[in-house]
C-alpha cells in the first residue's frame, strides 16, 4: 500500500500536459505513465457501462491507441482526462449501437426543464431496505441498478461513482455545463433508488 501511495504522488507531480508532450517527443515512459494513471478509472467506467470484462479491455485499448495517435493534434483547450473519458464514452455508445441496445433518440440532449418519462418521473423517496447493504451480492445489485438508467443519466452516474470524477470534470467530459451534470445526477438518484428497492422486493418474494 505504501509503495502504491508513493508512486501515485510521484506521478501526480508531472501534469498530463507535460507527459503528453514528452510522449510526443518519443518518451515511451511518459506515455506509459499516462496509461498507468488512467487505466483503472477508465476501465471501471467502461466496464460498468457495458458490463463485459473482455470488451472493456478491448475498448480501453482503443482509447489509449487513439490517445497515442491523436497526441500530435490534440486540442489543448480541454483537459486530457476529460478527453479520455469522452472518447471512452463515445466508444461505449458505438458498442451499444452495434448491439442495438440503444436508440439514437436516447442520445438526444435533454433540456433542464424537460420532463422525464412518466415512469421515471415518479419519485421514490422511500428508505432503502437495510438488508440490501448487508447482502453479499451488493455489487451485483449496484451494477444492475446502474444498468437500468437511461444512457444520459448512466454516463453521469458512472463518471461519478465508477470513475470518481468531479462534476466539473463530468461536464467537461460530456460537453455540458457543470450544473447540468449535477441536475442529471440528481434526476438519476430516484431511478437508482427505485431499481434497488425493486431488486430487494424481488429477493424477498
Amino acid at each position, binding site marked *: 500500500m505504501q509503495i502504491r501511495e508513493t508512486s501515485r504522488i510521484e506521478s501526480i507531480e508531472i501534469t498530463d500536459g507535460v507527459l503528453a508532450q514528452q510522449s*510526443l*517527443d*518519443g518518451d*515511451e515512459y511518459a*506515455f*506509459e505513465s499516462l*496509461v*498507468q494513471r488512467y*487505466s*483503472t478509472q477508465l*476501465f*471501471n467506467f467502461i*466496464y*460498468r457501462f457495458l458490463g463485459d*470484462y*473482455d*470488451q*472493456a*479491455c*478491448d475498448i*480501453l*485499448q*482503443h482509447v*489509449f*491507441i*487513439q490517445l*497515442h*495517435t*491523436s*497526441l*500530435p*493534434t490534440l486540442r489543448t483547450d480541454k483537459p486530457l482526462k476529460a478527453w479520455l473519458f469522452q472518447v471512452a464514452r463515445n*466508444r461505449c455508445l*458505438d458498442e451499444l449501437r452495434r448491439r442495438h441496445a440503444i436508440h439514437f433518440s436516447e442520445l438526444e440532449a435533454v433540456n433542464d426543464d424537460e420532463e422525464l418519462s412518466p415512469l421515471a418521473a415518479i419519485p421514490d423517496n422511500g*428508505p*432503502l431496505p437495510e438488508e*440490501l*447493504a448487508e447482502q453479499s451480492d*451488493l*455489487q451485483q445489485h*449496484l*451494477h444492475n441498478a446502474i444498468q437500468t438508467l437511461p444512457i444520459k443519466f448512466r454516463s453521469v452516474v458512472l463518471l*461519478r*461513482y*465508477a470513475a*470518481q470524477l*468531479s*462534476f*466539473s470534470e463530468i461536464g467537461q467530459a460530456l460537453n455540458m455545463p457543470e450544473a447540468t451534470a*449535477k441536475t442529471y445526477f440528481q434526476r438519476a*438518484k430516484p431511478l*437508482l*433508488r427505485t431499481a*434497488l428497492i425493486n431488486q430487494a422486493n424481488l429477493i424477498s418474494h
Partner: protein
Amino acid sequence: MQYQEYISFLDDDMPQDDIDKLFSQLQAIEPPPSFISRVLSRVPTTMSSVSAASLFSQSVEWNQLDRWVVGNNRRKLC
C-alpha cells in the same frame, strides 16, 4: 478479475445521501495485470511524431484503429 477498494471517495462538496453511501461501496475493478504491456506493444511506437502528425491530421476512424487492437475474441481463437 481483480477488485480493489477505493481509497477515497468524491472530493467536492455536494452533500451525500444514502444512495451515495451505498454506491461508495461500488468496488473498483482492475484491468488484467498484462494490460499496460499489451497497450504499449500495440501503439505504433516506431512512428516519429512528425510522421504521426501528418498521418493523423486527417480524421481517424475507429475502423482504422482496429488493426492495432487485439480483440479478446481473436485472442481466444489463438
